[in-house]
């Protein structure tokens, strides 16, 4: 009952013009960054974090959540009109969206994306409101041993799912974990790997590193080969289509659930939610051949899957202090900057904050509906700006963004170094998301390991005998072993045998 009262209060507190203006502004910036291919939600949130540093915590986080939702929504536009995903999460919408666009139904596809995004974000918000307090309750019983496995699990699964090369993903994860160890460590304030530089004592800050990896690396990649693409003409109406939502309600619900659950997994980005929803929709669809050629079902699945994973990513952020994806990692950093410590203690120290986040995310979904109704055609003009003009301006914002958090020039240099490194790594097939996870989870892993060893007096037994540890440890081990071909073949044979066994069982019954 108290929860509902808090939720009501939270909604009421956001119903004033200034707050709505902030929300619309955040969504606007997010949509623009999402429309521009290459600029990701992570960069949008990182830059807006520095812009909103002096605002009140609630207003700042509102702007960031609206930009998060806006960026993924904006990315679907480019996926449909240019066959290039605006953000990686929109890749699943490319095939069907673009096929629809070429048939002259670009507006219909965009309308479906709008209504699907609105409905699935709201569904995700419901899950956020319901699950976060529950997960936080469970997390209160987590100790150093559990957090060690959770942090390791996050990095391992991120490395294995993102991109198509788990080995490279894990290497990036290890690199991220290592870079997080540079600087003064948390227990004895001892300088690690600072090579005598005082400035490195503070370590490499998260926001400059992210701005470098997602901003400068993108600027370098784009300017290395600035190709301008032709966009499909937008002829039909772009109004949101709610009839398709009702028609395909099963897909919407299924993708919503899949999106939220993939969101809960640390390190797994929004694109996993989109692809898994797409795959699930294709598996049960009666028109499988249409998928990839302009299937409404497929587009709906991809869009609802990736939008509902946004609240899904915020849940572990708030309840465990472990980000579900790179953009939510920046969101978490922003919360910490504004004095809110995410994690199991959040429900005790700032109990209203979770409900405020629920209200903010609801507001975010309303803003994208508004932009979907009124702002489609004007915003698309952004795509006409040549990349050669846009990228220097983006880098300008990156420098400001890197500097503004702590007003240190060293952060700008760190941003440059990480950005150049990230650029070369990306050209060789290394993904950035595991690096980000490693950077965020590094301190947690370090403290948990050392505290755990102190508590157990050097014994590794609690790490492998406590029940939750065993669960996380087994899943982590399983994920790593899946990479070994002989183990993978074993698993596939076992799955095949189990599948045929189940089928035989049901066949006999029927």
């Amino acid at each position, binding site marked *: 009952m108290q929860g509902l009262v808090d939720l009501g209060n939270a909604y009421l507190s956001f119903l004033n013009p200034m707050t709505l203006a902030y929300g619309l502004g955040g969504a606007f910036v997010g949509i623009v960054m999402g429309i521009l291919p290459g600029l990701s939600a992570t960069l949008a949130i990182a830059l807006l974090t520095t*812009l909103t540093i002096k605002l009140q915590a609630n207003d700042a986080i509102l702007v960031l959540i609206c930009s998060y939702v806006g960026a993924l929504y904006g990315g679907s536009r480019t996926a449909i009109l240019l066959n290039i995903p605006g953000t990686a999460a929109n890749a699943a919408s490319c095939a069907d969206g673009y096929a629809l666009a070429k048939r002259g139904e670009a507006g219909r596809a965009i309308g479906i994306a709008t209504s699907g995004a609105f409905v699935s974000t709201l569904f995700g918000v419901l899950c956020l409101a319901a699950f976060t307090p529950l997960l936080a309750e469970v997390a209160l019983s987590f100790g150093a041993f559990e957090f060690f496995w959770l942090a390791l699990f996050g990095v391992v699964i991120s490395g294995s799912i993102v991109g198509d090369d788990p080995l490279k993903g894990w290497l990036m994860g290890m690199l991220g974990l290592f870079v997080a160890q540079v600087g003064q460590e948390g227990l004895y304030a001892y300088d690690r790997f600072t090579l005598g530089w005082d400035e490195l004592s503070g370590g490499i800050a998260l926001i400059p590193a992210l701005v470098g990896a997602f901003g400068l690396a993108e600027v370098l990649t784009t300017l290395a080969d*600035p190709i301008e693409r032709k966009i499909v003409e937008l002829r039909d109406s772009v109004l949101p289509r709610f009839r398709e939502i009702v028609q395909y309600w099963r897909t919407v619900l299924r993708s919503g659930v899949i999106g939220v659950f993939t969101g809960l997994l640390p390190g797994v980005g929004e694109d996993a939610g989109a692809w898994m929803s797409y795959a699930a929709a294709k598996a049960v669809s009666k028109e499988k051949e249409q998928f990839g050629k302009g299937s409404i079902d497929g587009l709906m699945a991809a869009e609802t899957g990736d939008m509902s994973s946004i609240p899904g990513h915020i849940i572990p952020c708030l309840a465990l202090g472990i980000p579900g994806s790179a953009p939510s990692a920046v969101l978490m950093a922003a919360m910490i900057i504004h004095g809110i410590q995410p994690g199991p203690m959040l429900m005790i120290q700032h109990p209203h904050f979770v409900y405020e986040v629920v209200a903010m995310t609801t507001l975010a979904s309303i803003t994208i509906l508004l932009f979907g109704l009124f702002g489609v055609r004007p915003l698309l003009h952004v795509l006409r700006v040549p990349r050669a003009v846009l990228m220097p301006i983006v880098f300008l914002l990156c420098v400001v963004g890197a500097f503004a958090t702590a007003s240190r020039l060293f952060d700008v240099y760190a941003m440059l170094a990480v950005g150049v490194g990230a650029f070369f790594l990306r050209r060789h097939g290394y993904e950035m998301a595991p690096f980000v996870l490693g950077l965020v989870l590094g301190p947690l892993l370090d403290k948990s390991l050392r505290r755990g060893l102190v508590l157990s007096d050097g014994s590794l037994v609690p790490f492998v005998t406590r029940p939750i540890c065993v669960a996380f440890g087994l899943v982590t081990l399983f994920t790593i072993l899946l990479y070994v071909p002989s183990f993978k073949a074993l698993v596939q044979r076992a799955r095949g045998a189990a599948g045929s066994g189940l089928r035989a069982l049901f066949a006999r019954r029927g």
Partner: protein
Amino acid sequence: MPPLEHAPPTARSEFFGACAWLALGVAIVIGSWTMDRLEQQNINPYTAPGLLPGLLGLAMIVLGGALAHRSWRRGALREAAPPLTLDRRDERRRIWVVMALCVGYGAVLIGHGLPFWLASTIYVTASILIVRRLSRDPEQRRLSAKAAVQAIVIGVAASLITQWVFQDLFLVRLP
């Protein structure tokens, strides 16, 4: 999946990358092993600062070794380096130029006395003009007076608007 804009990495480049990871892993392990164990402070030996970095270094060695082994099996040392086509040479030149521009702005122009808006104007204008000059399209390469004026206007506008929004509107400190 969206079209690949850049050729996938060759087994050869992967092999050299793997060697770099191995070297980094070894350096990290050495650094962690030689790190001060803080015995004078009488700390619990299991909380030595070098513990996790050492484990990470070992993991990096294992993964780097696996990557080296995999790329060696894929024929890394057998294939020759791919020929340097004109396209690739152009691309490389563009990369170095753009990188010089960005690093020049971030490390040299910013924070050394020049007002922020002036440094940013110089960077944006120079970047637009230089990237145009390096463009494949001959139309773009012709730097008319109109193009130069356009670039300067965009540079000034971008710098001033950014400064106004961040510093005056949102009270954020600029370099």
